[in-house]
């Protein structure tokens, strides 16, 4: 850093020997001010991010109850994880949930973006409506759906029946599949507007001429979409995939509230199991060890996807 400008000037030098030390003190002063400006933010990141990060690794190597003695057990927590069926089941379920939610969000989000990408009368209204549920919190949206999906008092079943889709109320939370479906329904409703927005931004980046050229060449709409639009949207698609995958892998609120992990712990996610281990069973060391593993999984996923993204951008 430091020695950037002024060097050209100083060669000419004799006339201004006194300027150099002054320029230097000025530069030092500015460096000091700069550090002072950023230090409050850095202090927060240190205390509430870096310290917990290091502490998490340290805790994961201990038996760490909420009260009482902590004791070093090396990789004991990690070994316990290997033979913990609940951990593996929750990891499997989380991956399955992610694999279901991600493509739905991408396809529907892209469809909505195609629908409202251009200016025309009323488009602003529809954009707003499709995006609006995104600003509601996961907890409130979950409680909204708890009611909506309730077979006795909820209005979803009544509507499905009057439209002729079902003949009697569905017990949405009675089986794993239906419970998963219920959560996916809520999440898609709540977050697909965000995916739509990302795709709208991506579509914006494609020059109009490209499509005109394709149409002059006689390409059909479908061919243009598949051969021209989608390849040009690779960066956007990669971004939406990363965000959807990371978001779904960290799912907690909606399962805690809507399914309660049930029936029979079959819809327990990884974060849910970490929560139970750390804050219900008070095995904080074990919770920390699972957090380390979850963090590594997510970092690998993100890194791989970023790498693929870069690779494609170069080609």
């Amino acid at each position: 850093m430091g020695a950037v400008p002024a060097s050209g000037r100083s060669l000419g030098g004799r006339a201004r020997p006194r300027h150099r030390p002054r320029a230097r003190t000025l530069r030092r002063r500015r460096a000091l001010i700069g550090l002072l400006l950023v230090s409050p933010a850095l202090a927060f990141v240190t205390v509430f991010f870096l310290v917990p990060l290091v502490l998490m690794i340290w805790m994961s190597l201990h038996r760490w109850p909420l009260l009482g003695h902590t004791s070093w057990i090396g990789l004991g927590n990690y070994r316990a994880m290997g033979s913990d069926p609940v951990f593996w089941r929750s990891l499997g379920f989380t991956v399955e949930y992610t694999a279901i939610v991600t493509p739905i969000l991408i396809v529907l989000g892209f469809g909505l973006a195609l629908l409202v990408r251009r200016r025309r009368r009323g488009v602003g209204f529809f954009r707003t409506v499709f995006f609006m549920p995104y600003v509601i919190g996961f907890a409130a949206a979950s409680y909204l759906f708890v009611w909506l999906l309730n077979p006795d008092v909820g209005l979803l079943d009544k509507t499905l029946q009057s439209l002729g889709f079902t003949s009697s109320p569905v017990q949405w939370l009675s089986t794993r599949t239906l419970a998963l479906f219920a959560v996916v329904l809520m999440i898609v409703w709540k977050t697909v507007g965000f995916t739509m927005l990302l795709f709208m931004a991506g579509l914006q980046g494609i020059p109009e001429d490209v499509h005109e050229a394709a149409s002059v060449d006689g390409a059909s709409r479908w061919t243009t979409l598949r051969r021209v639009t989608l390849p040009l949207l690779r960066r956007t698609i990669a971004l939406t995939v990363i965000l959807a995958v990371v978001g779904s892998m960290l799912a907690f609120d909606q399962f805690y509230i809507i399914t309660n992990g049930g029936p029979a712990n079959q819809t327990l996610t990884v974060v849910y199991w970490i929560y139970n281990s750390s804050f219900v069973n008070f095995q904080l060391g074990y919770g920390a060890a699972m957090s380390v593993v979850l963090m590594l999984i997510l970092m690998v996923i993100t890194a791989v996807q970023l790498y693929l993204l870069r690779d494609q951008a170069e080609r």
Partner: protein
Amino acid sequence: MTAATAPTDRRAPGRPRRRSAPRQALPDVVWWGICGLVAIMFLFPLAMVLLTVLKTSSEAAATPPHYLPHHLSGQNFRELGDADIWRYLLNSSEVALGTVVGTVILATLGGYGFARYRFPGRSLLFLGTLTTLMVPFQALLTPLYSVLIFLDLQNSLVGLALVYITFQLPFALFVMRNAFAEIPQEIEDASEMDGASTLTTLRRVMIPVAIPAVVTVALFAFFSAWNEFLAALIFLSDQSRYTLPVYLTTLVTGRLGAINWGLLEAGVVVTIVPCLLIFLLLQRYYMRGLMSGAVR
């Protein structure tokens, strides 16, 4: 609805603006039909909950349910008032306000420092802050709990706001740094030439120009603090300190095991209406912020 969501508007000014594209545009009737149908599906849950909370308790709990209230009633909200909703509204507002103010101050100072001052390690520190985005906040809750106990900030709204501020900072610093970096250097120089101090320059010259970025940062801080559930559930142990999303969990386990649906959904409405109103009022800033953050 101005709905200036429209990134569409960023066309080159010289170009004629088409009302609808020549190709690929659906006929108006079909387009309205499809969009209308989808819009009904999106609005259905919100419209239904807004109608249901206006029913009486017994009507809200009726099986089978009906769509429209037979008698409009404020009963659910009166019961919420009796259940001390004000306290939880206040808790949520305090945490959200603290998060907004803290994030805006720290990100403005830091963003200005990163954008305009050279100091050793500047780019390393900035990139380091951004990479914290790679580590999910949910993974850090277990050790954070211990840190908060150590600092005597567990079960405290202040502690919760401090945690929220920290996890807003990477995005907020990024937005503020970019906003300040776009301001021409001359404006700043002129102010300093007049003998203004660093903070005066920041307050009188830089921030007024960067107001849209400040609003963006404030909005994101507000939504995340208002809506966050898991950390609040873990860190707050006294019910009197619960924020609204956590308070909703207490409404489910109602008296006698039966859920008071009208009451629960009235709580949901109280929780979501501020978000919807703020979004509808300020959506231009919110959308822009989302784009800049998401495109990274």
